């Protein structure tokens, strides 16, 4: 999968946890989940669990810790997909 494909799919993963639909439609690598998308920090755990189910991957604590913006989410997901 390309980074762009993952980015587009991530929009549906984030959608239940943000009310900022305009920002969501225009996310890029630098978009911060907490400060830009205004996602409750505890909901980052739900996003990680939803991403695991969607891509059939397992995200460990160290990887989860990195997932603070869209770019780092794509990094972690593509890394885990390549390990499969």
């Amino acid at each position, binding site marked *: 999968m390309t980074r762009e494909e993952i980015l587009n799919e991530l929009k549906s993963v984030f959608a239940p946890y943000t009310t900022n639909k305009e920002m969501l439609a225009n996310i890029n690598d630098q978009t911060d989940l*907490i400060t830009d998308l205004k996602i409750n*920090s*505890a*909901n*980052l755990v*739900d996003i*990680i669990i939803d991403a695991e189910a969607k891509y059939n991957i397992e995200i460990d*604590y160290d990887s989860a*810790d990195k997932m603070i913006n869209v770019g780092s989410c794509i990094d972690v997901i593509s890394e885990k997909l390549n390990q499969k």
Partner: protein
Amino acid sequence: MNQEVLNHLPYKSSFRFVDHITELSSDGVIGDYTLRKDSFFYRDHFEGNPVTPGVIITEIMAQIGLVVLGIYLLMKDNEGSLTADEPMFPLLTSTEVSFHKMVLPGQKVIVTSEKEYFRFGKLKCYVEMHDSAGDIVAKGMFSGIVKKVELKNG
């Protein structure tokens, strides 16, 4: 074990809403609380017509359904103990509750909680409250953080 978990509850007197733990495992908890007739909130909610506020119902569900279970899960992770010098500040991070029946002063309520997941320090549970007649009082999803996790920017 149940008594040890109760001893770790950080709430005091007027804001402690757990009397007994009747079942406790890694998958969930059942506990009960009897509303005290002299609780502070009945005097004003409502004057001459005391009814248990929804926020208190929510708090009872959170204390039994999330905090009791969360303490148990943390103790299990730490081989049966919580270090005494580690301050416990459970934080409610989200709730979605529907209310079905009023609870009056002196009534006993039974809270049943089923774990959805406990990961990265966050506990999410489906929680129901019944009265002693077995009728549903409230139900909903509860999430909380029971241990400080350093999520960056979090």
